[in-house]
């Protein structure tokens, strides 16, 4: 089966039904390994055990951004090709992305309490992550306001694209706005500043969460397709009665 065949919602449903158990199984296995690795990872010499909060924090941040990226691609699919599956992808990705962004915010603030002595500082990174979360909530609110799904999809697509242009600007301006707190980040991708004993469990954990994201996204897309079919059937029934 070619990838292009998946663009057909029925084919996609078949694929999703077959893929979800496998993907879920792989996710569980990788998670088991990742949690084990995270347990045996040494404590930081300064931060102690709280460094392990990072194993939740970093995947949350990464997937929060990945979900918006995916929604941006889906938005192009919606506007250019009017593809229903793109609508479904964008709709399914939004709450998952919001949840991961929230996970990043919550774990970050739990880490901040013992490390900085406060749950929240108006630091550049925290603020831009919070704004990303607000944008997710705005997108979800828009999905829930427009009744017709395909019209909602097009309105959301434009908002998503504008958000995709604006997010780097927000990030950059917020960085500029307040660099007093913690100028260097806890984690930089290109950083040899993290010891391999912590970096490797972190990467495994990130892979595990990404698999979880893929599983949840497929399941949410499947549910959304079924929900739309139910809606279409109800509309047909309603018009048959009248």
């Amino acid at each position, binding site marked *: 089966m070619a990838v292009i065949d998946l663009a057909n919602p029925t084919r996609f449903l078949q694929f999703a039904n077959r893929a979800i158990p496998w993907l879920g199984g792989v996710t569980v296995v990788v998670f088991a390994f990742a949690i084990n690795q995270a347990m045996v990872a040494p404590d930081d010499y300064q931060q102690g055990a709280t460094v392990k909060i990072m194993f939740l924090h970093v995947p949350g941040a990464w997937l929060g951004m990945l979900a918006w990226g995916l929604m941006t691609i889906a938005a192009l699919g919606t506007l250019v090709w009017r593809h229903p599956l793109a609508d479904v992808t964008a709709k399914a990705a939004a709450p998952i992305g919001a949840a991961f962004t929230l996970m990043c915010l919550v774990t970050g603030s739990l880490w901040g309490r013992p490390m900085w002595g406060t749950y929240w500082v108006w630091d550049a990174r925290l603020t831009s992550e919070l704004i990303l979360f607000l944008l997710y*909530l*705005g997108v979800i609110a828009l999905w829930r306001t427009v009744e017709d799904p395909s019209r909602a999809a097009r*309105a959301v697509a434009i*908002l998503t694209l504008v958000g995709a*242009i604006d997010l780097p600007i*927000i990030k950059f301006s917020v960085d*500029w706005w307040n660099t007093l707190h913690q100028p260097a980040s806890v984690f930089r991708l290109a950083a040899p500043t993290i010891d391999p004993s912590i970096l490797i469990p972190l990467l495994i954990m990130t892979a595990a969460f990404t698999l979880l994201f893929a599983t949840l996204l497929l399941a949410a897309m499947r549910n959304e397709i079924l929900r739309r079919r139910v809606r279409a059937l109800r509309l047909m029934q309603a018009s048959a009665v009248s």
Partner: protein
Amino acid sequence: MSPLAAILFRDLRIAVRVGGGALIGVLFFLVVVTLTPFALGPDIALLQRIGPAILWLAALLASLLALDRLFAADHQDGSLDLILMGRAPLELVVAAKALAHWLTTGLPLIIAAPLIGLLLNLDGRAEAALVLTFLVGTPALTFIGLIGAAIAVTLRRGGLLLAVLVLPLTVPVLIFGVAAANAAMVGPVPFGTPFTILCALTLASLVVGPFAAAAALRQEME
């Protein structure tokens, strides 16, 4: 008269006539600024220090308040359909409408800002900087809000949603607007640095806003 000029003058005329509500934004601006000392206490030094921030926040809220009027009335009386069917490029029509909107909501704020700044004990230098940042920054607020207004035009309770959608996108404008005004007051950054970035944001929004809003209108009205 070209269609764009016709639309511009039509919107201006509607705004200044009875029911147009062109100056309500300024009134709202004044009320918000007046409320702040009640919340913070009448400490003149404190008010002076955060004055530009208060004025910028009030201007942001005031420009947001009028946004849902941008397309809603045209949608209700059907003239939006005529505009969509017309031969004038929708992007330019939308930009003309935004310009009219800015002239009736943004420009009065800029004129009122120095007077209202006096209430917050701003000195001449700060006032001048504030007016400059308003002059450059408020078009960005209008043109970013334009996108939200176009997305929310067919929604029944679009006003509140519009605020939720638009406000996060205006964060950079707020940051650099206040930063430039503060830089002129107390430094240490030279005024030009945040100000040029504010100019860049405005120019970018002038480009992105009409295209995104026109796309949204086309999608919504079919």
